[in-house]
């Protein structure tokens, strides 16, 4: 199939035009399509639907796993959650769309190449509220522009973050304050999102606003820890047999 030789966005466009069903795997995420529409997206950079629902308290973890066990193979986990009364239909749609657009943003960042398309592959969640490919692509572009307008430093999105020394935060909105509380010089935006069970893009928005307010910056590079696992490249070079041999050779050449 020609689609998988292109970038992720071009592949999605082609698959939408073919009304394809299956899973498109790219470098940064997986898009599940049904009849050319996006039914779900997963990315390692964003919390999944299960994390968002169970960690927020909308659903007990037992209930989530029971639904996955019983109906995962039949791709009906979403319907099972609603039919069993564990989650309201509207709540599930809202949470699902939140996770879908969040994962899509990261899966499409820098528009990496698509690796492969598995025709017919379906997601265990099932189709809850399919979204046109064009909407997903347009929204991801709009989200990128929105971040740029807030604070045009993309490093904030991927680097470990630190508080700006001496800067005092006053009267932050509750959500932004919770994000700031987790900024510790080590965690990245994705770590903070996972920790709070927040969508990662929405965490990026808060972090860029905090950066724009002069409260958060990218952490200084952490020096390599001393110890056997992280040898000092200069100090140990002279103890290396090859280096010692070269040194003797050099000394011999100079003596000539």
């Amino acid at each position: 199939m020609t689609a998988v030789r292109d970038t992720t966005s071009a592949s999605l466009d082609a698959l939408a035009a073919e009304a394809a069903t299956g899973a498109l795997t790219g470098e940064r995420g997986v898009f599940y399509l049904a009849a050319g529409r996006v039914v779900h997206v997963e990315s390692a950079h964003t919390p999944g639907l299960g994390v968002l629902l169970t960690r927020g308290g909308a659903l007990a973890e037992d209930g989530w796993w029971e639904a996955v066990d019983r109906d995962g193979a039949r791709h009906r986990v979403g319907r099972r959650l609603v039919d069993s009364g564990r989650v309201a239909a509207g709540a599930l749609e809202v949470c699902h769309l939140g996770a879908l657009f969040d994962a899509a943003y990261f899966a499409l960042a820098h528009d990496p190449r698509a690796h492969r398309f598995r025709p017919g592959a379906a997601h265990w969640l099932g189709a809850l509220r399919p979204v046109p490919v064009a909407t997903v692509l347009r929204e991801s572009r709009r989200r990128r522009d929105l971040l740029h307008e807030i604070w045009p430093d993309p490093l904030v999105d991927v680097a470990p973050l630190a508080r700006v020394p001496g800067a005092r935060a006053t009267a932050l909105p509750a959500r932004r304050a919770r994000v700031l509380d987790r900024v510790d010089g080590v965690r990245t935006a994705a770590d903070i999102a996972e920790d709070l069970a927040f969508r990662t893009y929405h965490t990026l928005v808060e972090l860029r606003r905090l950066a724009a307010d002069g409260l958060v910056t990218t952490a200084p590079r952490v020096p390599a820890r001393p110890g056997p696992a992280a040898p000092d490249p200069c100090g140990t070079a002279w103890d290396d047999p090859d280096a010692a041999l070269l040194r003797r050779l050099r000394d011999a050449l100079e003596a000539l």
Partner: protein
Amino acid sequence: MPGIDESLLEAMRLPGARGAWLVDWISGLALGAVGEAPGGDAETTAAETAELARHAAESGALAPGGGDGAVGSEPPVEDLIVTTGDSYHLIRFVSTPFDSTVFLHLWLDRGEGNLALARIRLGETAARLVLG
């Protein structure tokens, strides 16, 4: 149990209703839309009202008790009413037990709409959307 579309259609049954949307106030994304959009473009409407809603949601001065909104009651503002020469815009925040940041936006004709009724009904619709 109503999903997003059923909830929006329910809101559209109110007298004078012209359009209804479910919008994320941080990203500006419309998760659902029915009826007309002011200016004809639902996505632009959603992005602009999201910015208005965000300022209200993040306002420390408007929050009950002066700002430190307790976790779980986010956002501290329940609704917003914007009145123009010919319309009411009613924005109702939807509280969810997971990370969502959404509101319902109902556009009402000012001559036909009943603001007090719409405000009560939209609150009920917001609750049913999340609780079933």
